[in-house]
């Protein structure tokens, strides 16, 4: 007895551009890393270490 060639449709997939759960998890992980890199960039470029300042109202 051979296995059927056509796979059954799997309803338990994310949908949209993601064909598997693994792919959507990888996308989300990359997004999380991108957010961290963005904030590192903000800190490095916008936060100006020019002297003992800060804390005013």
């Amino acid at each position, binding site marked *: 007895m051979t296995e059927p060639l056509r796979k059954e449709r799997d309803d338990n997939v*994310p*949908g949209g551009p993601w064909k598997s759960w693994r792919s959507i998890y990888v996308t989300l*992980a990359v997004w999380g890393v991108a957010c961290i890199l963005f904030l590192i960039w903000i*800190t490095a470029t916008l*936060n100006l270490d*020019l002297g003992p*300042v*800060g804390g005013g109202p």
Partner: protein
Amino acid sequence: MTGIDWGVFAAYLFGVLGFALWQSRRNEGVEGFFLGNRTMPWWAIGLSVMATQASAITLIGTTGQGYTDGMRFVQTYLPLPFAMIILSVVFVPFFYRAKLFTAYEYLEERFDAKTRSLASFLFLVGRAMGTGVIMYAPAIVLSTILGWDERITISIMAVFTIGYTVTGGITAVIWTDVVQMLMMFGGIVLAILFMVAGLPEGVGVADAAYIGGVQQMWNAIDFTWDPQSRYTIWSGLIGGTFLFLGYFGADQSQVQRYLTANSERDSRLSLIFNGFMKVPMQIAILGIGVLMFAFYHFEQPPIVFNEAEVRTVMESERAAEFEALSVRFADAHAERRTTVMAILEARDLGGGGARDLELTLASQDATLLGLREAAKAIVTDIRGSESNDTNYIFPTWLTTYFPVGLVGLMIATVFAAAMSSIDSELTALSSATVIDFYRRWFRTDATDAHYLTVSRLATLFWGITAWGFALRAGQGGSLIELVNEVGSLVYGSILGAFLLAFFVPRAHGTPAFLGVLCGVGTVVFVNFSTEVGWLWWNPIGVGMVLVVGTLLSFVMTPPPSTPSARTAP
């Protein structure tokens, strides 16, 4: 607030209420009341997950946090996308397939009844206080606008919300949250637009951002390793991971949300949706706080942001002293404004002399801070308890600089945000009380109608308890910190119980129970006896439960019965 603002506010508020009550007509029995008959779509649950976590505190407390402390609080949220992945892979299948009402039911199926009851009890303790804080937040807004004592506004809102919650179910809560979350997105965009538009002529958003940078407010990432520092990348990534795993994986107010999905796929997608949206939203909200901080370098801020407290002081015998401080504050601000404009000019000319100007700015900041502290000391003296106006900063800016009509809309957004969260929390508290205690221990065979009535009474009880806590919340500093701190006392240990259940096959009931007790005891000890930041409490609690639970499981003899097949790891 003008008449138009009040009209917009009332229309929005009653519209949301009517919508919620209309949706609640679908609730039939306990499963309808607590789980919406498990028919909710993923995107509605996803928005509701965000809305429940966000509430009014996010707008009020987090903007205030950005104003006083810069961006660094965002580090707490950085692990959220990764936590959502772990939850989707590990937690959702266990919870969804077991067809539970509460997360803690799983602990009985895996361990025993006493572990379930302990975890549920800890949730009730932590969440009841947290709900009180959530109830307090919008009362601040109304207090500032109306000039009423905040205790009056807390009480009015509590009565109104409790009444609505008792009649509404989870279906109404989720759909209300959808509307509220969309309003919050709109409110964030509007706040940024009006912040930029309100800058003086000739001063752009880049200039405001530059001043924020000079003042070290774009401090989003801190790589220093210091357990006593509240917010670093390490405390955020490590402590935050456990905080979110505990909150989304072991807190009934969130677990109940994704148990309402009509499939395991939708449960997962609702969490993933949250993973994508949450960090950018927090960046935007904290950014509003930083921009507001820079904004008040060009426009004069009030010396104390709580108008009601200022009015009280001005009617006291120390009014003249307070008035004198206000005059000196205005003069000092004018001098600082001149310095700030000179710094921008020096930057445009290539930076020459900027160093001296920044030292001058630091000196002027110290003067302003000293005057503000002196004014707050007078408020504290008159009030009889410590004054903390961090949570009044954003509402004050809103009512001062927003145009007619939109003030009412923004206030309605804040109010409805809180209402939806309170509603969710009270429903979660009620479900844990009824399902984990009443139905488990006292009346195991009553009718569905009976349990529904008891659920409504439990909601009423927790509403009144949270109301009492809300009346005390004003002395706790930043609201967003207070909520997370209260939760962190117990989240780690509850999460530890679930991780023990999922990953330690040998673990059994009594060791798990003792492990949770050790976890909570250790965290309480760390809280009261050390300076370790609250984000570290969660991994400490988890670690204690896992270590003690695992070791005792090897030492103690397991009971003869084995866990059911569907809940064993």
